[in-house]
């Protein structure tokens, strides 16, 4: 990822755990203890900061904001891209957009009829349907999103666009829950 190219929709944004934040009438002030710098965020910036409480993909973040604020998607994307870059430049978030993914070791899978449950090391449960379960199996080896979509399209009767959308959302969910990891550059 270079500084100039836009962050891809599947790029995962993770808040740096050290900054302190305070909410004042819906406006967030953040102190980065590493640099000693303060950041005053407006209402939209504050909402983004709140949405970043859990790791979230750039695309999911934009979806959420377009649903909440009266804003054109294109304008929103531009603003969010710039804001996230600024957060990253100031060491407030990490953003990673791996090309290849793999399921994390130590996650247990319980198979039921037509569905399954993923259980992480802390004992958190995450229910998945039949397609999700198949994706989980495919993630046993390092695989790109394109390859995932292709494999699923062959096996299930869905359009390629829909398949990509769902696969990406599912993958982001898995990453946000720490069930899937970056398998390095493709």
């Amino acid at each position, binding site marked *: 990822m270079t500084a100039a190219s836009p962050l891809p929709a599947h790029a995962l944004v993770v808040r740096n755990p050290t900054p*302190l934040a*305070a909410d*004042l*009438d*819906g*406006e*967030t*002030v953040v*102190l980065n*203890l590493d640099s*000693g710098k*303060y950041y*005053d*965020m407006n209402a939209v910036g504050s909402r983004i900061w709140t949405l970043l409480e859990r790791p979230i993909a750039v695309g999911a973040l934009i979806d959420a904001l377009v649903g909440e604020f009266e804003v054109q998607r294109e304008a929103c994307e531009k603003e969010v891209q710039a804001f996230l870059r600024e957060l990253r430049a100031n060491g407030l978030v990490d953003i990673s957009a791996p090309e290849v993914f793999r399921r994390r070791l130590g996650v247990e899978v319980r198979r039921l009829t037509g569905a399954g449950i993923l259980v992480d090391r802390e004992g958190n449960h995450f229910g998945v349907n039949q397609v999700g379960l198949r994706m989980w199996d495919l993630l046993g080896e390092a695989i790109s999103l394109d390859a995932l979509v292709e494999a699923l399209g062959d096996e299930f009767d869905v359009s390629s666009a829909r398949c990509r959308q769902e696969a990406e959302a599912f993958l982001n969910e898995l990453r946000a829950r720490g069930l899937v990891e970056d398998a390095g550059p493709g």
Partner: protein
Amino acid sequence: MSLIDVKGAGHEYRAFGLQIRSSLPLPEMLPATGEGEPDACIDCGTVPAKLREAMVVRKRFEAAPGAFLLRIEGVARYLVTGGKRIVVDPERGAHDEEVRLFLLGSALGALLHQRHDLVLHGSAIGDGGGCALFLGVSGAGKSTLALAFRQRGHPILADDLSVVRADRDGRLELQPGYQQAKLWLDSLACVDIDGEGLRRVHRSMDKRALPLGASFLHFPRPVTRIYILRPEERDDVHIEPLRGSDRLAALRSNTYRFRYLESSGSKAAHFRSAAQLARQVPLAIVRRPKDLRLLPELVGRLEADLRTGAGDA
């Protein structure tokens, strides 16, 4: 029965809610009331010119987590450690008043920062069961305004250093400071006090120490209102409530010796208590003309605002 005082040469005082044992007499502080171990000690001794572990080095001070060194040329060096101890090393021929001026200001301020107290730059007056703070840069009129309120029967809790600390229930309280206020001669004249007979706080400054006497309120009070004073080119007084993140920014810029917090290890604590105070207490900017002709109107407007809390907006 012993003829020798086994406690040794120490004076016991209280200020900012702390018991302070000092080998220097500090008439600015109230004498201690209770027995028991002091929270902080002030002693004379040798202070090095540099702090070995310094992470921040400036012209007049050096700082590291838990250690702070202040150098005032012609007066003294001060070493403040662990929020518990100040060692004063006066220069030969230094005046006692000046040694105390920087001890009770910058050095005590650094000690309070180390203790994770919120130290604001301003005066505090009692109002009903609570207190109001007047914050602002030097020359903003904080002490003058406090004295004007004193003339109208309000007690004074603090001058210059206003220390806020949470009580056992987490309620933020202003801790009473010293039983004196420091004012320029012309400011004293504004409140009909002839300062000529009063002690100078510094040889080269026409600032005088005014003992507060019975008007000093030596009990903590919850902070109920904060005003930031801004002298401007204007002819009227305007009170404007602050909202959102501006409230925290105002407390930040009116923190006593904010730059001392750099590398002190207290920045996180400062952030948390300032945010709590900003959330709990109404803050307003008070814009006033630069000269003090409108002082009576200013006091009147603030008294009205204290009653209603509405501001001008």
